[in-house]
């Protein structure tokens, strides 16, 4: 794959590049993943061609980590896109309870309240999994979660279908 094609396919852009009117022929370079292991190698390649690049970034996602392997860009984008899903947020919110401090329970419940307002039927499986883990490991939070779900049924009618 050519460098230009790679950038276009994944909507990867250059931040703070200099000079502005560099020779576009650089984009016809073949992207050999043996030569360009990660994005740091790409940055170095541009620098060798006297094009200074501070960052690579993808609009609506953010900067691309320099240590990201070229052939892992797909996973990076997929993961970033997943972050806005309810399913991801449910799992992520649950992480707050790792090494729980007292105040984290309130934080967890505040976070869950926001997510539960947008839960759909296809999130019931994950929600049920979380409740089962809580029932086994943290009965206090389990009871609070149950109460929260019951309270939010007025605000999110889909939660009425969720059986605890």
């Amino acid at each position, binding site marked *: 794959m050519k460098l230009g094609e790679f950038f276009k396919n994944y909507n990867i*852009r250059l*931040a*703070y590049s200099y000079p*502005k*009117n560099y020779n*576009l022929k650089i984009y016809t370079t073949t992207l050999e993943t043996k030569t360009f292991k990660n994005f740091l190698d790409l940055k170095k390649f541009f620098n060798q061609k006297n094009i200074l690049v*501070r*960052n690579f*970034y993808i*609009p*609506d*996602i*953010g*900067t691309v*980590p320099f*240590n*990201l392997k070229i052939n892992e860009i797909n996973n990076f984008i997929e*993961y*970033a896109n997943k*972050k*806005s899903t309810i399913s991801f*947020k449910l799992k*992520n*919110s649950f*992480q*707050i309870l*790792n090494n729980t401090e007292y105040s*984290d329970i309130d*934080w967890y419940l*505040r*976070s869950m*309240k*926001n997510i539960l307002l947008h839960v759909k039927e296809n999130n019931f499986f994950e929600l049920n999994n979380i409740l089962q883990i809580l029932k086994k490991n943290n009965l206090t939070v389990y009871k609070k979660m149950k109460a929260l779900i019951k309270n939010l049924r007025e605000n999110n009618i889909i939660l009425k279908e969720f059986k605890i």
Partner: protein
Amino acid sequence: MKITKATYRAPDNYGDTSFDIETSVENKNEDIVDMSVSTLTILDGNNNTVSCDYDREENSYAEKDETFSVNLSGYAKAYLISDFSKAKAIVDLTTYKKEFKKIGDFDIPADHKSCIQSNNQIEFGKLRVFGISIFRWDPPENASDDHSVAVKVAVKNISDEYIQKVLIKVQLIDRTGSNLVDSEDYRAIPPNGSMHFEPSVYAKSGKLKGAKLDISIASFHQIEHYNAESLLQLSKD
């Protein structure tokens, strides 16, 4: 902010080890978080620097009381850490709110010897946006290749606030109203400083006839700073 995962991988055949850090951040402010910028620092047990992942900008979104997550990673030669059980990760993260303004729609210059100018400056929040000049770079050797249209605009920060990111976006709209391509240029502007932006777009010469450039500006302003640290654990993956 809380670090929910801080792991390192056993060194590979080259003696490299990598670090994976996950954080959760709660927005307790009325302002909506639109962006986060974070730095990961890995230190050994004696606070010596081992690895850094810096300037990690992410389009994080969180309204009041919402939580968002940021993942960071780093790598280093394993010999930099004599005792992994004492190594730690420090995460510094700042949240930003976004302000946006459309500057206007502009024609495309007919050739590389003429230009289109806005002939006015505008004030946008803490920024002064000077008049815009639109020009074309010299045509390519092969006339059927893409031609470049660029925008010059200087922006002054008229406040005492350090503005993390000012972004000028240009969208090339063809004569039918379709968005052909877009491009941005972004930079930080220190208090009372000025910056020059020069985003450009490329298209075939024919596509530029009757096309317009939609130009807008966005700025990102600090809401809150967070930090957290955690000891590293061996990854189970």
